[in-house]
Each structure stands twice: as C-alpha cells, then as structure tokens.
C-alpha cells in the first residue's frame, strides 16, 4: 500500500425485504438527501415514488434520433436514386427509373425509412442510457464493500454519498440506524 490515506465515501445500509428498504428510502427522501441511492437485484416497482425521483426523459433522446434516422433515409435514397448533383465529391446521384415509377417515388422508400429510424433509435437509446446513468464505471467506491456483492443477489442496500450537502458522519449514521438496517457500514475510498 503506497497510499494509506482514506476518506469516507458513503454509508451503506443493508435490508432484507423490499418493504424494509422502501420504508427506509422514504425516510431518507424525507430527510432531504440528494446524492443517495437504493441498490436492488432487480427493478423494484414503486421505488421511484419511495425515493421521490422525477420521471425519466430518455424517451426524448430515442424519439429525436429515431426521426433523424427517418430523415437520413429519405435524404440518402433521394440523393442516390433521384437527384443529380455531387455532394462533397461522394459521387453523383443518378435518377433510376425502375418499373416506370418516378425516380423519387415515395412508397418504395417507406421500408428503409422505417428500418433506419429503428436503427438510429436503438443506438440512441443504448448510448443515451449509458450516458444518463454514467456507465461504464468500474471504480465506484461502493465496490470497496465486500458485503455489497449481495446487491446483485438477494439483499437490498441504501447508499448515501459523502458528497451530499447534508452528509454528516454522525447524523447520517443515526438516520440510517433509525431505519433498522440489518447491517451498516462506512465505506471509505483512497485519497488520490
């Protein structure tokens, strides 16, 4: 160990049942903490309310990029199969007359508009999700706790981070103790 200096990173409280963590989450919410979280092995319904979270807005990203995909498809197909100019020297568009239809016939473009819309929407949802929840992140101090491994098994945890404005070694501990956790730990991280 080159660097022995440590500072508190977060409090970790463990609970056994969904009702216990929901009840505790309401107490933490009512106490006015901001940088805290519940860790559960599966998506627990009702916790948005128990934690007082705002609804997610990820759908906006998906929608915008989905529409962008549709637009890209229209431009791509009109450019290559209907228009006659050379954009940025990528090659001339060339009007194709197939089956006596006009070169820019719209109905035959619908399938690819749909597919590209879905494709871009899918990518945007994936990367939007990772961006919003700030993953991948492998170095979170919560992983310092050995006990936390059960968070993906069958235990439920509440963590309150030391960055929170209301965080106080004594008072936060007292708050968490008042919620009857089965285990309580102060997780520390190394000072950089």
């Amino acid at each position, binding site marked *: 160990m080159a660097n022995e200096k440590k500072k508190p990173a977060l409090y970790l409280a463990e609970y056994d049942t969904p009702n216990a963590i929901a009840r505790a989450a309401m107490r933490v919410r009512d106490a006015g903490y901001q940088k805290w979280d519940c860790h559960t092995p599966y998506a627990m319904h*009702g916790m948005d309310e128990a934690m007082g979270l705002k609804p997610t807005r*990820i759908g906006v990203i998906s929608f915008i990029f989905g529409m962008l995909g549709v637009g890209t498809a229209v431009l791509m197909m009109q450019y290559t199969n209907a228009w006659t100019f050379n954009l940025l020297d990528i090659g001339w568009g060339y009007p194709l007359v197939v089956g006596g239809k006009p070169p820019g016939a719209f109905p035959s473009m619908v399938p690819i508009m749909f597919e590209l819309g879905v494709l871009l929407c899918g990518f945007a949802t994936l990367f939007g999700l990772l961006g919003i929840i700030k993953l991948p992140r492998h170095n979170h101090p919560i992983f310092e706790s050995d006990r*936390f491994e059960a968070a*993906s098994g069958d235990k439920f945890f509440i963590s309150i981070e030391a960055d929170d404005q209301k965080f106080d070694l004594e008072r936060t501990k007292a708050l968490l103790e008042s919620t009857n956790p089965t285990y309580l730990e102060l997780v520390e991280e190394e000072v950089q």
Partner: protein
Amino acid sequence: MSYDAPIKEIGETYLLPEGTTANDVTETIAGVTENPAPRGWWLLFLASVSVLGIMGAALAYLFYQGVGVWGNNAPVYWAWDITNFVWWIGIGHAGTLISAILFLFRQKWRTSINRFAEAMTVFAVLCAGLFPAIHTGRPWFDYYLFPLPNQMDMWPNFKSPLMWDVFAVSTYLTISVIFWYVGLIPDFATLRDRSKNLTRKRVYGFFALGWRGAHRHWQHYERAYLIFAGISTPLVLSVHSVVSFDFATSVVPGWHTTIFPPYFVAGAVFSGFALVMTLMLICRSVFKLHGIVTIKHLDLMNKFMLGTALLVGYAYAMEFFIAWYSSNPYEQWVFLHNRLGWGMLDSKGNWGPLWWAYYAMVSCNVIVPQIFWFKRARTSVPIMLIASVLINIGMWFERFVIIVTSLYQDFLPSSWGMFHPTLIDVLTYLGTFGLFFTLFLLFVRWVPMIAIAEVKGTLPGAHPDIHALESRQEEPGTAAAPVPAE
C-alpha cells in the same frame, strides 16, 4: 395491490413454485456457468464444432468453384439457399416476439424463456444472413449492397425489395444484439459479484459495465427496455414482411399474393416458438431448470404454437381460395399441380413430382399442432418435443414449397425445369446447424440463459406495497427511532 401481483379473479397464480427465493433463482441459473460442464455439453459441443467445420469446407468449395456447385439452375434460381435463409430468419422471430411483444402485453411468464429466445434470435439471424451473402456468388462484392461512395458513382436501387431486405435484416440483427445485451447487463453483474477467481471477475465485470443495481439506474434502464420493446415489436413484424415482399412483389404465380406479409410473420413466430421449445426442453433437463421453466410456461408456449398453427393453416387455405377465385390458370396450375400434385393439365395424368413436400408441410404445420387442443398433450414433455421438431421440419418444407414449387413450372412449358439438390446444398444447410449450435452451446455455458433479474421480479412479495407504506409511515411503532434533528 400493484399490477405486479397475479390477478386472482382470472385464476392467475405465481409462476414459480411457492417458496422459491431470490437466492434459489441466482443459484440455479448462475450455477450453470460456474459448475463444470456436464459431459453431455462437451459431446454436443464437439459435434457442433465438427459440423461447423463441414460448413467451412462447403463454403470454401463454393467460393472456389462458384454457385454452380449448388443445384440452382434455370428456372429454379432460388432454391435451398433462400429456403434456408427464410427458415432461419423465421426462427429468429420468436426471440423478439417473446422479449418484446409479450413484454408490452405484460406476460410475465416470458421472463423464464426470453433470454434464451433472444440468444436464439441472434444466432439464427447470423445463420440466415449467411445465405444471401454467399448466394451472390462473389461474396467479396457484397459491399455493393450498401450505399458506399465509390469511384463508379454506382448506388443501390432502393426500389428493390431485396435492398429493403438488406436493411431490414441488418437492422434486425443489430437491434436484437443490443436488446439482448441491455437485458444481460444486470445478470453479468450478478455473475461478477459471485465470481471466485479474478479472470471471471474481470471478464464478467467488463461486460457488466460497473452495474451496481442503483435504482437511479434501474429507473432509466426500465424505460430504455420498454423503448427497445416498443421499437422491436414493429421491427420484428417488418422484417418478415419485407422478406415476404421479396416474393410478393414479383409476378411469379404462387408468390404474387397480398396475404404473404401476415402469413410469413405468423409462420415465423410459429417456427421460432417450436425451436425455442425444442432447445428449452433439452436445456431444462440437462441443466436441471425445472424449477424455473415450469410446465405452466411450456403449456403457454404450446397454446401459442396452436394459435399460430391455425393462422398458418388459414393462410394455406386462403392461397387456394385466391387461386380459384382469381381464375388465373397459372396460379391454379401452381397450386393444383405443383403443390397438391393433381395432374390437372397433365395429359398423362401424372402427379406433380414435388407433391410430397406440400403434404409434409400441411401434416407437420397444420395437423400435428392440433394435438395441443388437449391439455394432456400440452403438458407432456415427449409429445411437445416431437411436435416441435416436426413443426420445424414442416416450416422448412413450407419455404421449400413456396420457393421451388412456384418456380419449377410457371408460365411457359418450354421453360419448365426441375430442381435437384446437390451434396454441397445439403452440407451447407447442415453446416449452419454447426454454426448455430456452437454459438448456442457457448451461450448456455457462459452466459446466464435465463434473465435472473427479471425472474426475481416475478417472485411473490418482490415489490413493496408503496401506498400502504406511505399511509402507515406516521403511525407509531413502524420506525424505531425519530429522525435526528438538524
């Protein structure tokens, strides 16, 4: 209570046996990846890799000689290759149906089979995509299919359904992989946290992206999952519709019909469910998953197969009706002579030489599934295993019937011909099973084959009763000590 609980009024009960705990679920599913592989797995794996080798050899010979090594020839230019393409991609449809459409309909029983079916989708679409790619004859020119700027200023013809197919299939593969991976993130975290050695911890940890089960993450994650389900549902319907356009937009009798898109989609779901069933029954007994994939799940899947079998049977009947109703002699010839085998216009009274394919198709796809009207058949593992294998054979014949029996005798008797498969045709088709099963066996061995996090969410009491808790919060005795003052 909340909508998470089963609705007692309509006879719903919890899906998993009473007393199943979250820990049981983790142990059963994660255990498969942690315990040494059963000997059966190794035998199957070695067999699959060998068959994959056969595919490699068949493809090498194909590339060396050209597509002439197949039986395709005038007038049957599409034969086994496109049959296999449509068959494999149809199989892929069950995965998205189970994970997306049943998710939107809140069918909780999907949680025990969705991961499995999604993996099957990805591998089946890979096998499917191989066939059009090698059917081009010179697969090193396959990049022509994409609108890439090139020195010849040559662009694809976007009015061609074959182009739509390129976009539909590649989008489908990409979105299926993303959907599958997003669902896997929490389960990779479970495996990471259970890992005993550093390599496992690092590899699963890498794919888990540092997931820590935070509810602030779950909240966005669940919405993103819903969006994936929402876009995958029309996507899966579009993919097989576009595949059917490859046929329906042509003038070939037997292909030029408007019933094709829904008919193809129903058939795809039908065959996909059948393959999920076959593989699930095997994995369930090899890896002892009876507690998680219960008879109740299998019963529901059988009902689905019965339903789609009826849809497919209706489409078969409707094709005949339209052939009669349209008064089109070419259409009638294809259906009565090429398919049913009746020597309608044949002066010698000969049966059409490919009649047996049509009868195989109807027997396997329409007659066999009728057994699922009986509860005893729906809950009998041997019966559903045999039925699901027969259904997949029948669905292969369906595509063969549509493609080959429409092409070999169409308009001009002078250009009639016949199709005979070659050894390379057989080996290439067989070889894709090697590809599919190699990937599939690696999947069941190293990746949680059942969605751990989702199954846990269906256990009794998995979700807090928030409204009761909120109203009770002020009551004395629910909390041990008062909140400390600031």
